[in-house]
């Protein structure tokens, strides 16, 4: 291919041949800048933080649940896809088990190994507004629309209904156990009830005032309530008040009017010295239990201390963790706001973090065919990229000869949302999986017509997949199955046949979240949530080796087309290169580890989500995260801490002669932002799929509080 293109250039005039040569040798690329992927994350509805495992469970409006590992750079470890009929109002950890309850009236426990609901239980109380467990982890309490608080006993493998507390008039919106487990506070309409758990009696009735003015006629909804060990009850309600009550006497201690709209969420810190509240205005307000003056250290009270404004819309879910406040809401982003007093110095960990995009691929590119597959929860879209025959200087936009074209809009079948999908490199096969089924399609494109045929009989064993991946010659489909195993399916025009199940030796039960195979069709690498990376020999259908386990989860990996080296990038931004053939880290990788990565590289706050290579230039590794695109040139010296790391601007201004002395291996381009995917087509052009955050914001409903000019 390279030779051919050189032949062609000889026929052209000098100018274009120069251009072509530069294109081949220098880092000049034609870029398809794609912005037509209308990816729209859904709003965050609930969250629960498990301090023991440092995992945050996040429930979204579409019923999907995401697990973030806060111990490993907030990496999004697992995603349990949503389902049309499922809704999540609240999430709750009991030990390592995750429960949710929703307005469909069911309690669901999740199977975090197979990324699916383990079971769902009808609670028979109408829509469920809240679910919470006692500190002992023995019981779950749910608040129902019919006014009952139901207690469930947590058993080994399931939960069992135990009893109802005294039924009330009006729905139970929020619940909080007293740490002793003997009392429960329940937020309702216009009031808070305190129940004595052993007897099931309501022992206190705290009346919550309504709002002023026009809202006087509307009931006040106690959206959130927390019950502290000293029997203080703190509530947040739809009249914009945060109220502090004495649970012993049932008296109101203090009212803080914090907003004109609703106070939606409350979260208390582990030591009960701080409470954060989330409001409809998008603010998060912190209250701290401190002495108002320095002299009277004994008389502590709840004092409003800080206000954070990181959201534009309702803050529906909140968690105050050891060093940060985690918040999420209607504006779909997860914000980790570190509490600066908990840090001694400014560091990577003390920086504000916003998680906008999933840490996995939603875009698949058929490199040979120039097709793009976009994965939505409810459908798949197949696009053909546009064309341009022009040449231009760096910085130019080329005239389009052909516009991009949407070839296919494939709606999923059934209630379950799509959890993964794949497109074969030739563009001839398309597969997707939901929790309940896998579907495989044959695509045929001749000129402008596209025909899609569903492959009818898939092997029975192929029921669902965490990851799907086609071999580079499109002859095999790999499907990541339960317990980190991989099903190998042989594809041919006539049939589709199960070949083998590749199983890891480690016996890990965790799901595979990354899978990649080599261009020569020999190797397949998988990564699971236990941070294990297995390399299989696909020809011999057996495990080839296990890459030494590294402490951080791999966020992207790829096998080099010529050297068969496996390049892995982890959530902590470390890069490793492992020679599959020699079963050891490469010299380059050792050198990189020895010298260490540049601090600016390590300080980035989004994980690398894609690793690919340039077949024309074996030295180049292409990576990207949300905010940058990077080519690592292994032939160049590694940057040390003194080097200017982001040096493209400097290099651009240097002369040809001066440049080589300033080069280093990391060539970083920040021209493209909000990147969802970067891939290199076989014709050497890059495809950059951007999803501008502004476009996401513009599709959100109007916030309750509009910014007026200059206010």
């Amino acid at each position, binding site marked *: 291919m390279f030779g051919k293109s050189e032949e062609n250039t000889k026929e052209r005039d000098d100018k274009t041949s120069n251009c072509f040569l530069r294109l081949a040798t*220098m*880092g*000049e*690329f*034609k*870029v*398809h*800048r*794609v*912005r*037509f992927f209308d990816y729209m994350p859904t709003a965050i509805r609930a969250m629960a933080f498990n301090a023991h495992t440092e995992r945050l469970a996040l429930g979204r409006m579409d019923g999907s649940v995401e697990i973030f590992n806060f111990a490993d750079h907030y990496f999004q470890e697992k995603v349990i896809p949503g389902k049309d009929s499922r809704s999540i109002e609240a999430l709750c950890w009991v030990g390592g088990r995750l429960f949710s309850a929703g307005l469909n009236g069911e309690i669901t426990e999740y199977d975090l190994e197979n990324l699916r609901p383990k079971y769902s239980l009808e609670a028979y109380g109408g829509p469920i507004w809240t679910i919470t467990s006692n500190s002992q982890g023995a019981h779950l309490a749910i608040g129902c629309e019919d006014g009952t608080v139901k207690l469930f006993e947590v058993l080994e493998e399931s939960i069992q209904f135990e009893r109802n507390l005294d039924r009330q008039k009006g729905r139970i919106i929020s619940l909080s156990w007293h740490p002793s487990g003997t009392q429960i506070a329940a937020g309702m309409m216009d009031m808070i009830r305190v129940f004595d758990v052993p007897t099931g009696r309501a022992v206190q009735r705290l009346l919550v005032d309504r709002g002023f003015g026009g809202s006087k006629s509307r009931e006040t909804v106690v959206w959130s309530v927390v019950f502290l060990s000293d029997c203080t009850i703190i509530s947040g309600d739809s009249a914009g008040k945060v109220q502090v009550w004495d649970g012993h006497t049932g008296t109101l201690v203090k009212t803080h009017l914090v907003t004109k709209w609703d106070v939606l969420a409350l979260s208390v810190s582990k030591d009960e010295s701080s409470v954060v509240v989330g409001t409809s205005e998008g603010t998060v307000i912190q209250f701290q239990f401190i002495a108002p003056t320095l002299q009277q250290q004994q008389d502590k009270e709840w004092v409003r201390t800080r206000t954070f404004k990181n959201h534009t819309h309702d803050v529906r879910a909140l968690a105050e963790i050891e060093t940060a406040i985690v918040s999420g809401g209607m504006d779909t982003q997860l914000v980790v706001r570190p509490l600066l007093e908990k840090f001694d110095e400014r560091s990577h960990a003390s920086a504000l973090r916003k998680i906008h995009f999933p840490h996995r691929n939603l875009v698949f590119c058929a490199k040979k065919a120039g097709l793009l597959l976009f994965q939505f929860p409810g459908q798949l879209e197949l696009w053909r990229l*546009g*064309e*341009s025959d022009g*040449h*231009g*200087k*760096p*910085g*130019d*936009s*080329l005239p*389009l000869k052909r*516009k*991009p074209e949407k070839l296919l809009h494939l709606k999923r079948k059934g209630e379950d949302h799509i959890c993964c999908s794949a497109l074969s490199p030739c563009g001839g096969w398309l597969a997707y999986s939901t929790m309940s089924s896998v579907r495989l399609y044959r695509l045929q494109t001749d000129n402008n017509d596209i025909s899609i045929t569903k492959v009818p009989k898939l092997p029975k064993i192929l029921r669902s997949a965490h990851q799907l991946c086609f071999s580079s010659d499109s002859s095999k489909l790999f499907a990541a199955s339960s317990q980190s195993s991989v099903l190998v399916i042989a594809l041919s025009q006539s049939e589709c046949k199960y070949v083998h199940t590749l199983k890891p030796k480690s016996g890990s039960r965790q799901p595979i979240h990354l899978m990649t195979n080599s261009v020569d069709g020999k190797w397949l690498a998988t990564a699971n949530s236990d941070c294990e990376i297995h390399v299989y020999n696909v020809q011999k259908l057996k495990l080839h080796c296990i890459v030494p386990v590294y402490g951080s989860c791999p966020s992207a990996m790829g096998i080099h087309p010529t050297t068969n080296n496996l390049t892995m990038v982890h959530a902590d931004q470390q890069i490793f290169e492992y020679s599959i053939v020699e079963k050891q880290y490469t010299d380059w990788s050792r050198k990189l580890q020895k010298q260490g990565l540049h601090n600016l590289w390590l300080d980035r706050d989004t994980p690398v989500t894609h690793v690919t290579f340039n077949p024309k230039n074996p030295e180049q590794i292409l990576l990207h995260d949300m905010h940058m695109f990077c*080519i690592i040139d292994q032939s160049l010296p590694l940057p040390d801490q003194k080097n200017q790391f982001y*040096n*493209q601007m400097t*290099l*651009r201004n240097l002369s040809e002669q001066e*440049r080589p002395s300033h*080069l280093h291996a990391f*060539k970083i*381009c920040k*021209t493209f932002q909000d990147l969802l995917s970067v891939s290199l087509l076989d014709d050497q*052009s*890059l495809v950059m799929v951007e999803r501008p955050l502004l476009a996401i914001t513009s599709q959100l409903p109007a916030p309750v509080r509009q910014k007026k*000019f*200059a*206010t």
Partner: protein
Amino acid sequence: MATLFEGFTLCGLVQTPRASDSAIQGIELDGDSDHAVVTDSTRAVTLYKVSDQKPLGSWTVKQGQLLTCPAVFNFQTKEYVVVSDNKVIRVWKEEDLNLDKAFKATVSADVWRVHSAPGGEPVVLFQRGAVRLLDSLLSVPQQPIEDILSEEEEDIRWSTNIMAEKQHFVLFTTEQRGEHFLYVQRLNPNTLQKYRLESEDSGASPLSFSASLRDKHINLLYLYPNGCVYQSVVAVQGPVGLEGVQALPRSLRLRLPVGEGELGAASAVALDEAHVAVVGMPHPSARTGKDFLCIWNTNFQTLQAGKEMVGRIRGQVWCYLGKLFVPHGKALSVIPYECQKSSLASALGKLRHPGIAVSKSSVAIPSWNTLLHGDQPQGPTKIVDTRKSKLRRKSQSAPALTVDQVLELIKTGPVEEVRKEVEALVSRGDAQDLQLSVGRLACHLVARSQVETAFYAPVALARLVQTQCLCHSMCPDLLLLALEHKDYFLCQLCLQLFPDIPEGVTCACLKTFIGVPDGDVEMVSLEPDSVSFMEGLVAAGARGGQQNGFSPPLFEDSCDPHHQPKPPQHQDKKNPTLQLEVCPVGLHKAVLLNEVLQTPYSDNLLVPHLKDLNAPQVILFLQYLQFIYLKYSQDVYTQTPVLRSPTMTQIIDWVCLLLDAHFTVLVMAPDAKGLLSNLQSFVKSQVKLFSELGKIEGSLQELHKMKPSKDISQYSIEVIELF
């Protein structure tokens, strides 16, 4: 009196390496009176539009070449001429962009200057004293140039050219071993006269020269470092053919205070026959620093105006068409000036050249006695003059009385006759005449009225006031007399036309106007323009259109933005808006009050007099002010274009003044309570409006700052390069 007005910077100056050098070689006029051609000390000529302070064009010679003479404008061919490197004459037009491509001619001797003046051909003065007309020189550029200055040590110090009627002169001064000579070169026929300047005792050289043409005489003004300004006069029709060197007599025109030491870089330029502008000298009343620009009257040796120029003065000043160009510090400033004939001079006619005086046919003012003692018109000059004017008037065929006769008549004559004569006098008199006679007539009329209560000539007085030659200080009793006689029309005229009414009198007028019953005023005929304005204002309320962000409900509301406006049925009769729609005073009274509002005043002086008003008067006036303020806040303000109407600022200033003067009274008075609270809420609403406008302005300003973001479509193919 001479006045220096607020100056402005025409351009910045580049710093020259040596401090003594000026950054500017010369400033010349162009065909356009608003243009100035500025030649800097090195390579550039820039054409400025002076009033806009912006350059219209700039021409430079190549690096390495040097302009050696200021560029001049050839008024005949509309071309610019400059000399570079002493020998290369360049000629170009305004539309030429490149000086290098312009016409060039190399002459055989070093050029000192090219001079040009309107109506004449440019002349070239060579360093050795020879003079050529530009045209003839350019036709044969390499023609031999003779040496006029014989000895080598004699060098030209200064030169100029002067167009006197049909004669063209080139003047230059030279210095030879401490002696200074003036050469007067006359062109066509060419004659050259050499004068020796009287040397100063100290042996110092003159710092600057300035030549002007006056009455067929060339006046040469030169300044010595000891502050002496001498004048020498050379007759245009001078003694032709006198051989040898003549001594040039001089007269000391001015001895400037130089402070300590001598003047260094100073320059004097004659502005007119009596005024000299001097830069680089200390101001007599300022202690230190020589960085002043002063205008001196040479007749009276008085300082007329002074201005400190910030930064170093280089002893350069140019004067063109009422503007002084002074390079100082890092800027070239343009300072407009005005030299009026000083009053003493005009009064005595001392310096008026007889020829001019006759041609203007003005009546010269009799004598000091007339001015000082008014009623004893005597002295030969006066008689001559009156006779002269009498003759002239007779020739105009109107059998009218002279000023003095009218004055006599005023003393005794009946009102009607006085009116007739005064009108006749005023209608035929010219401005020069009137200025003086009107004052006397008015004074006499007022004096008689004060003595004889029965005598009052309103029409005659009004006529006199309407000449606009009268002011309050000329006849201080006039306005009070008018007030006394309830002659509101005259009062209005006085208020309109007198620029110098004392605050006390203004206040007296105000008090009278407020106090007068509406019925009395409505019958009086007032100046129609102001009446129609007021009618329009009152009528406008009926239309009900309201703008400017003002809405009546806001009146009663607090400024809480969330406060719901009350439904209209709440607005009962007590609604202040409705009340305020009605003018609290009659139409004519309002017209008179408007005049008071527009009278110039100084608030420090006015406030004590305002205290004379009593509470009801204050409240009424305040009500009126509020009424018209409200009207202005509606759309009337913009819709009634009238020459004379009180401005919004005047109204607000008066409200402030009234509140200042009577705050306690108003707070105590129960009647004023509603008024004040209305005023407060209205002001509040206005303040709110303006703060909103401020916000809008802020937002819109942000728009300016925003970079035009590159519009990125859904899909594009781009080329990037990574290094």
